[in-house]
């Protein structure tokens, strides 16, 4: 597939990535949801699963309704018990290709650090995103986002999507 070289389009892709991480760093689940198209999907899995062709990973929101429900989990269901952490993202674009149907296929590396309530900071996960991005009413959105972690065993439980 042809690599996208249009600087304006690449900047729009980067802005979508930024909107995604910006929302999660502020525990703004509605902002996270707003980066997805409807229909849209989100999957969090690991490289180990990809290698062994295993379908059950760490999170699987395979329809827009599931994305909505994940917002409910974080905002309502879990809030009383979990120890929230502050996520901080470092992402950089590996490649960005235009698909024949006009969708954008992007691959982006991600490192996610977290700071717990005790003020100590650690690396949470490392991996990459495998995205299909579409234009909806003049905005870029994720039609599907698959986060594939190199990290098979995170050092604590995950509350938010990666």
């Amino acid at each position: 597939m042809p690599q996208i070289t249009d600087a304006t389009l690449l900047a729009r892709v980067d802005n979508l990535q930024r909107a995604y991480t910006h929302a999660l760093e502020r525990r703004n689940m509605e902002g996270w949801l707003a980066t997805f198209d409807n229909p849209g999907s989100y999957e969090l899995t690991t490289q180990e699963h990809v290698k062994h062709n295993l379908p059950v990973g760490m999170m699987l929101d395979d329809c827009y309704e599931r994305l909505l429900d994940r917002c409910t989990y974080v905002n309502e269901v879990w809030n009383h018990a979990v120890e929230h952490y502050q996520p901080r993202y470092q992402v950089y674009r590996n490649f960005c290709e235009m698909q024949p149907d006009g969708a954008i296929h992007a691959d982006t590396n991600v490192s996610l650090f977290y700071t717990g309530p005790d003020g100590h900071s650690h690396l949470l996960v490392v991996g990459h995103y495998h995205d299909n991005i579409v234009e909806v009413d003049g905005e870029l959105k994720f039609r599907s986002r698959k986060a594939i972690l190199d990290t098979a065993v995170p050092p604590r439980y995950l509350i938010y999507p990666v």
Partner: protein
Amino acid sequence: MNSPISPIDLQNWSDHTRVPFSVYTDPDIYRMELERIFYGPFWHPVALIAEIPEIGDYKTVTVGEASLIVTHTGENEFHTMLNACSHRGVELACEFLGKATDFTCPYHGWVFDNKGTCHVANGEERFRTDFKKSDFGLTQIRTTVWSQVIWATFDPATPSMETFLGDAAPALRNALGGGERPLKLLGYQKITFNCNWKIYMDNDGYHAGLLHTAFRLLDFQGGTADQISDGTGGHWGIDYGTKPYEDNGYLNDASIVETRNDELTATVNLIRPLCQSVKHLNSINFRFGKPLGPTQTEVHYAYLGFADDDEAINNHRIRQSANLLGPSGFVSIEDSAVFERVQKAVSAPNGTINFVKGLADSPDGKRCMQNDEAGSTPWWNDYKQRMGL
């Protein structure tokens, strides 16, 4: 304000239902647990047949702190061996799951087949005169298969699986689909819990309707089934069944909590020392645990379906398994939070964890109600004696 329950320390521990905090933090206690429990008379699950279904498949796994290789070597034939070259102790296999007919040591090139027999010992012409390759096979660990799970023990005195599990066996067998229908591996969720391994075991399973908000929101309250504690160290199982979910509108996608194909069996099992298995709705998981010192525990949740599942139920199991009952599950994430919050609290001196609910009706804890704490007390009674505390 005085606590109604006075603190005690380890030296004066007399009541096994009141467990001193230091049992969950002391490095010396942890070392003793490795010797007396993990390398003692307990069976440990090391693999599911579904993880290594073909002859030639292998898995690496840690029991206690011992690195092991589990190999599938023939029809219903499995070996568990130390993952250490018999020459100079180098770890032979690094991959979590793999396929190999032999293992070659990267250090001096010794070669072992997947039953552990040594076939190549490079330079043996200059070894000591009484050297025989046949004396240098990999160290074999006693292995058995029960209900499609491969179990291993370091202790020749460990009783048979039937005696080991006792009356806790039926619920575990039910969690695995009855034991005969071939299981299929769907995936894993692996996690580090920042807690002692016994905190992980103390605080899961019995409390479904108490802790989990999602159970209440979805009207999945339990609490009426018997909790049966039995076997070596006090395993316990709850075989409580479930009722079909009636959509109350809380979820946008209620299909995620549907029970399909009339699989109403629901069970929770704690197998001592460090294993759990849960079947709820159409999700089946088997959890392998390993201690990472006294204050951390790594758990691998293996998710399962059946080899003869049709596409529809297979997809349904995948969706439920990925989202409901794991360390970040919709229903179960509070477990993860509670494990770690208990560990933070038990570093204080002279505190105790107290098991109280249900003891009025079940002083020995062997038969109690689902949400009772009494079911954990046979374990603590056994632990206290086994550890000489």
